[in-house]
Each structure stands twice: as structure tokens, then as C-alpha cells.
């Protein structure tokens, strides 16, 4: 019995005349449009309130203003981002699945247990891919000659200055996307696309994941990460490995900035990342990925809904 057979598609989109790919595209783009617009409004409102309550006046030249903005407005931005991800991303995604496709939302998203070693391996592969992603960004940063003031401001926005801020950042930047973005991209978009396109779905989802972040500098590395996360989802038929890997990637980024702040690490965009370390970590990552493939040897069969069978 395949998964397709066990889910009852009783939503309004599930009619023979309706294109499932159109549902996936409409859903993800629609939610993206709502999310980005409402998030910007929320960030504006919260920063205005925050500035008024704490009487923040930006002073000095452009560089000083950029630095001050990053420091003072960090908290309202983080709060706005985490609220937006839950309210404008997660809730509409669940609503769309329920309304358009099926009332069996948990089953559709594939919130189900898988083996611990599969989750741990997914996390480890992500850990060792991280230096390569940073290296790619570093190349672009250097080629563009981005001045230190902007790099500092960017780092400051994501650098926790205290333990409590560290916890807030983990919640806003690591936990929230690992839940909300995973459910939108893997649980809805890839899951829906998979019903028609099979294996191609994880590559399309990965690239879209990169594009959605609207950061041209990190487009290549985020798309690579997106493809990896989507593959974990496709291979395991569970959202847990990709969520855990997503959490790991974001957590690692905050942790490195936190350690740098405390003077225990220097691995940030403006610093050189040794090519040797990058190659070594890439090799370790490839090795771990092969182990992952080996332990998840039994491949799932996906029934594409026009009757063809794809792996």
C-alpha cells in the first residue's frame, strides 16, 4: 500500500480538472507574497513602537546609523520575524492543506517518526556542509568588496550579546524556520509537487528555497542547502530529518557569531576560511552522506498520480 492510497484527498482542489502543480505553485507563491508583505508591515510597526518606548535616536554618519540600527532594532526584528513565520507562513500553509487537499494534515506533511540515526546523520551532513556554504558566500563578499561597516552591521544583527539574547535568537532563527519553513517548503510545496513530478520535486523545491530568501549573495549556498534538506525529506518520507538539519544549519550560524562575540571563534564572513578545512569538511560531509544513503537503503516508492511509478 502506498502513501498516496492511504490519504483521503477530500479538499476543494482535489478535482480531476485542477492541476496539482498549479496548487503547489499558487500556494507557495501566495503564502510568500502574504508573508513578506505582512512581515514588513509588522517589522515597521514593532520598530516604531520600540523606538518610541526606548527613545532611540539614531545619530552620527551613515556608518554609525547602520551599526546602531543593527544593535537597537535587533529585538523587534527578531520578534516580528518569529511571529510572522508562525502567523503568516505556518497557519496559511496548514489552512491551504486542509482546505485544498486533505483534512489529514499531519499525514500529508509527513510528521512521523523515523530512526534516530537518520536524523543524527542528516544533522551531521549539514554541519560539515556549513564551511563550504560559508566559503561560497565569502568568495562573493570578497569579489564585491563589501565594506567592513556593512559586514559588521550584518553580523551585529545576528550576534547575541547575552545568554538570554542567545536563547531568543535560537528560537527566532533556528527553531521557528525549522518548523514553519520546513512545513511550507517540504511539507506542502515539495509534498504536493512530488505527487506529479516524483524525484524532480526535491531539486525544484531546493532552488525555490534559495530564491525565497531574497538574498542574492547566499542564493547558491541556500539553494544547495535547500536541495539537501529536500532530499532528506524525499528519502526519509518524514519531515523530521530535514527539520533537524535546518535547525542545525541556523543554530551553527548563531553559535559561531556568539562564540566570536565571546572571543572563542573567528569564523565569520569577513575572515578567511582555509580552503583545506573546506575540502576536508566537504569530504567528511560526502562520506556521511554515503552512510546516510546506505542506512536508508530501502527506497520509498512514490506513485505519481497519472499511474507512472517513480523513484
Amino acid at each position, binding site marked *: 500500500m502506498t502513501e498516496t492510497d492511504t490519504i483521503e484527498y477530500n479538499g476543494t*482542489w482535489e478535482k480531476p480538472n*485542477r492541476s496539482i502543480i498549479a*496548487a503547489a505553485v499558487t500556494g507557495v507563491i501566495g503564502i510568500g507574497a502574504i508573508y513578506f508583505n505582512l512581515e514588513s508591515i509588522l517589522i515597521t510597526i514593532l520598530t516604531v513602537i520600540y523606538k518610541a518606548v526606548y527613545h532611540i535616536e539614531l545619530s*552620527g554618519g*551613515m556608518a554609525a546609523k547602520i551599526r546602531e540600527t543593527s544593535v537597537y532594532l535587533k529585538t523587534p526584528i527578531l520578534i516580528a520575524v518569529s511571529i510572522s513565520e508562525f502567523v503568516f507562513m505556518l497557519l496559511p500553509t496548514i489552512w491551504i492543506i486542509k482546505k485544498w487537499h486533505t483534512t489529514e494534515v499531519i499525514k500529508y506533511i509527513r510528521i512521523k517518526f523515523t530512526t534516530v540515526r537518520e536524523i543524527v546523520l542528516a544533522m551531521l551532513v549539514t554541519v560539515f556542509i556549513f564551511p563550504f556554504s560559508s566559503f561560497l558566500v565569502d568568495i562573493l563578499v570578497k569579489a564585491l568588496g563589501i565594506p567592513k561597516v556593512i559586514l559588521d552591521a550584518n553580523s551585529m544583527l545576528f550576534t547575541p550579546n547575552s545568554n538570554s539574547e542567545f536563547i531568543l535568537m535560537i528560537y527566532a532563527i533556528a527553531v521557528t524556520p525549522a518548523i514553519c519553513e520546513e512545513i511550507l517548503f517540504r511539507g506542502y510545496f515539495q509534498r504536493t509537487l512530488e505527487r506529479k513530478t516524483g524525484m524532480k520535486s526535491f531539486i525544484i523545491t531546493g532552488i525555490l528555497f534559495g530564491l525565497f530568501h531574497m538574498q542574492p549573495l547566499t542564493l547558491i549556498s541556500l539553494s544547495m542547502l535547500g536541495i539537501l534538506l529536500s532530499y532528506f525529506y524525499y528519502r526519509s518520507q518524514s519531515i523530521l530529518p530535514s527539520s533537524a538539519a535546518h535547525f542545525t544549519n541556523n543554530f551553527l550560524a548563531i553559535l559561531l557569531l556568539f562564540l566570536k562575540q565571546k572571543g572563542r571563534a573567528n569564523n565569520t564572513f569577513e575572515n578567511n576560511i582555509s580552503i583545506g578545512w573546506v575540502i576536508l569538511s566537504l569530504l567528511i560531509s560526502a562520506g556521511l552522506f554515503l552512510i546516510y544513503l546506505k542506512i536508508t537503503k530501502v527506497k520509498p516508492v512514490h506513485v505519481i498520480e497519472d499511474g507512472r511509478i517513480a523513484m
Partner: protein
Amino acid sequence: MKCEYCNQEIPSGSEVGSNGHYFCNQLHRYYWEQRSIGNIKYDLNSQGSSPYNESSKSPELNSSLGFNPDNGMTLGDIFSNSINLIKETFTRNIIILVLFLVPSGILLAFGLKYFFTIMTSSASITQDIEGQQIDPSQLLGKMIGMVIFVLIILIFALAYLGAEIGVLNNGCKQIEGKKISINDTISKIFSITYIKVAAELILLVLALMGIIIAGILSMYLLKLFVLLNVFNDVTVNILGVILIIAAFLYAFNLLFKWYFAEVILVHTGCGIIESFKRSSYLVKNNWWRTFGIVILISLVVGFAVSLILSPLSFVFMWDYYRHLFKIMASGGENQINPVESLEMFSKLGTTFGLIIVINLILRSLAFPLFQIVMYFDLKIRKNDFDDAVGKLEANSNL
């Protein structure tokens, strides 16, 4: 009595048609008439189903359109049908858009480069020779340059209009089950329809601006009452603001009322005034629905385009960013010299032109087709598939 089209029993009193041919509704009559003149190519009898029957496998879009023939399309139907239509017309539309927008876009890119160069040199002159007399021949050269730039913008706008007519025509024909060739589309673009659509757009802009200007002028007229001591200043100001808001709201209302005039012109080839009337008739009682869906579609299409355009713009503007960061890094981080930034802008002219063209091509691949599906949805809702009925109703509802 059975419907000629779907062969279902017609509820008594609701039949449409005459001369021995009766239908459930105007849509069925329309389909039956289209089929009988060979516009819809599939054979209904052999499939035993109507075009919107879910089991139909006809390759024609008509048969894959999803909607309820009595109530029109849901929001999901509109999105699903529009995406199908985008897919079906993609190749022909991209050819038309590239044919019309790429040559004019290249011209626009050079025009923008030229414009920025003029602006940069004007700024430099103002800074360098402040107080001195400007050479008249230099000034004349700049004025001629500006005129050429305006002409280039005009050529681009005309090319864009042609491309849009082509896309609308492809979409309308496709939704009726007719696949037309590129040559047919080009013939349609270079027909009387082009003049009509251009005139319709000019009329629309004039009407909307006229209403807003009337609102502003009436505020000044109200000032006369102050002079005549009828009202005091405060009352006149409040009334004036109310009048301007009312003018804007009315113009906004008309904008959506006449939203489908362009599609109607391309689809039916009717007169300009009639297209406004028919659009008003279709939107009547559906204004809020039209407004909401148009806003939603604008957001969705805008976001989809920005997803693609964001990395592309970054690549195109690579040199500009490098230059900007270089200035910032070389100690100028607290202020940027306006002449220096204008110089940077002058290098952006071609890039802006390319970004504008790609943006318009991407938008035009999607937005007009959503518009067409919405137009057909309203036609279904209003049973507006009989020209005579449509004209009659339109005349009585404007």
C-alpha cells in the same frame, strides 16, 4: 425539454434559445454554437461529456477549464485555469513578447544610458560653472537629447502595447479552444484593434485624471464661498478634502469598473465606448470580488516576478555595487558625493533598461492571462455569451 449541448433535462421556464434549439444557460448555447461552427474541435458526443466534465481528456483548454457553469469560478478555479492558460500559451506568448519587447527594450536601455549621461553632465555643469553663463548650443543639445529620450519611451510604450494585445489575443483564443499561429497574432496586433486599445487606454487615463482634477478644482471653487462670506475657511477646507477623497474614490471605482475594457476590445473587437459599457456590466455586483482578486493576483504575480528578478538584478548590477562599495570602503562611508553617485547612475542606464524589459516580459506572461480568466468567469456569472443580450444589458446598466 433537453439541452442541445449537455443533453440534460432543462428545468421548466429556465430554457434559453429558440428555433427548436434550447439550452440550460447562455454558456451552453455559446459552446453549442462555437462547436457547430467548428471553433471547438473535440467531439462531445464521442466522449459523452461537456467541456467542463471532469472526465474529459480533451487537449483543448475549453475541456480542461474547471468551473461550475451556473455559478462561475471559485478563486481556486481562477488560479488553476490561469496557470493552465499560462502553460498552454507560453511558447507563443514568449515569442510575441521577445519580438516586440527585446528590440524596443534595447533601444530603451540605450535611451536610459543617454538620459543618465545628460543628467550627470547637467549636474556637473551646475556644480562647476555656478554663476557663469551656460553655452546655449550645449543647452540646445541637451534639449534635443531629452526629446529623443521621450521618443524612445514612446516607441517602447507602443511596442509594449502591441505585445500585450498579442498576449491577450492568444489567451482569449486559447480559452475558446482555438490555437492561432504567431502570424495571426501579429496580424491582430497590426489591425484596427491596436488603435482601439490605444484610444481606450488614453480615454481611460483622461477620464480618471479628469475626475481627480475636477475634485481638486472644485476645492478652489469652494474658496469663492469664503470670499462671499458664505462659509469660513475651516468649513471650506474640510469640504475640499472630502471632495478630493470622493474624486479619488470615484476614479478608483471606475478603474475597476472598466478593468476589462481592454480584454473585451481584443476579444470581441467591439467599439471603445461599448467595451467600457460591457466591462461595467460584467463588474456590476462583482466589484468587490474583482477588486479583491485583482489585488491578490497583483501581489502573487509581483512576488513571483521579484523571486526571479532579484538574483538577475544583482548580477546585472554587479559593477554598480562594486563601485558603490568601493566608494564606501575608501573612507566615504559617511556621505556620498552627489556627482559621484550620478556618475554611478550613468553606468546603470543599460542595466535599468534590461531589468525593465525582463520584468515586463515576466509580468506579461502571467498577468493578462489571469485577467482573461477573470473576464470569462464574469461572463459565465452573467451568462454573457450572447452579443445581443450583452449589448442590451450593457446599455441599460452603465
